[in-house]
């Protein structure tokens, strides 16, 4: 199963490199406004075909592009109840601090665990290849962190149960 990780990340990286070509485009509907078209979705001609890359039926990435913005949604592998809770809490922690993350979206897209929104303003200030590197790195680290947290939860539970039951 882990043999699909590298090809999966490679495919995501290649697709992101293609989709992250965004440029400034003011709103056609409201004058003097500049909105990320992938979020507003009023003009069909500005939206690109949304593309999914999946590693299996539980892990996938949805990439929706448009002329001035890109939305990346990630579905993270959650094998059991405890991973589900950990993942949910971890994502919630990050999404509450979305402003400091800059490219993070406060709510994940329906069906996914976390979403990023990259606009032309972000690509003007930051390197595109570094943004792509960041997202790939994020995808790699998330699985590791959740496994670590799960181990920590289990060992803590075991130790505290032992201590408690010593009294009996």
């Amino acid at each position: 199963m882990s043999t699909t990780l590298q090809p999966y990340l490679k495919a995501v990286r290649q697709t992101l490199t293609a989709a992250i070509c965004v440029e400034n485009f003011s709103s056609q509907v409201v004058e003097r406004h500049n909105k990320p078209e992938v979020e507003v979705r009023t003009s069909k001609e500005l939206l690109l075909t949304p593309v999914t890359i999946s590693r299996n039926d539980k892990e996938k990435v949805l990439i929706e592009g448009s002329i001035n913005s890109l939305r990346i949604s990630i579905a993270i592998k959650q094998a059991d109840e405890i991973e589900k809770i950990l993942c949910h809490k971890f994502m919630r922690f990050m999404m509450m601090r979305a402003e400091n993350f800059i490219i993070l979206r406060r709510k994940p897209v329906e069906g996914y665990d976390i979403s990023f929104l990259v606009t032309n303003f972000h690509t003007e200030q930051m390197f595109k290849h570094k943004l792509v590197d960041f997202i790939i790195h994020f995808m790699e680290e998330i699985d590791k962190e959740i496994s670590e947290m799960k181990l920590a939860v289990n060992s803590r539970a075991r130790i505290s149960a032992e201590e408690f039951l010593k009294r009996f």
Partner: protein
Amino acid sequence: MSKNTRNTAFRKVDVDQYGEEVYEEDQTADEGATGPSDAEVQSMLAKGRNGDALQYVLTNAPLTSKNQGVKDKAAQTVLKVLMSLKANEIEGSLKGLDQAKQDTLMKYIYRGFENPSEGSSAQLLVWHDKLFAVTGVGSIVRVLTDRKRV
């Protein structure tokens, strides 16, 4: 006053649709594009002519059709062909494709990712990798921007 001044239905009219610059999707649909015939593909796969099967399904891809059922059926056929080719045969079959067919193949690879089944994603990732080595980022950009969805 006359009764018709009470009619406020005019407020519900979407005036934006009557603007001159409203973008309309290309209406010309080719109803004749029925996609590859399943029987043909089955016979080719049975004979082991996997490369030919790939060429056939890509040539007859229903890109201009508006019928979603036709497109779904074609996508399933293509997925079957992609699964049948073994890893070492993939590179050989990619050699015979021109740019249009490579773009269509890339579209089908992404379409296949949307409905993952047993082991299909792993095989599709191999296809994606090999096709990318041949075509580069350009084919992904064409998949994203082409209005003719697969």
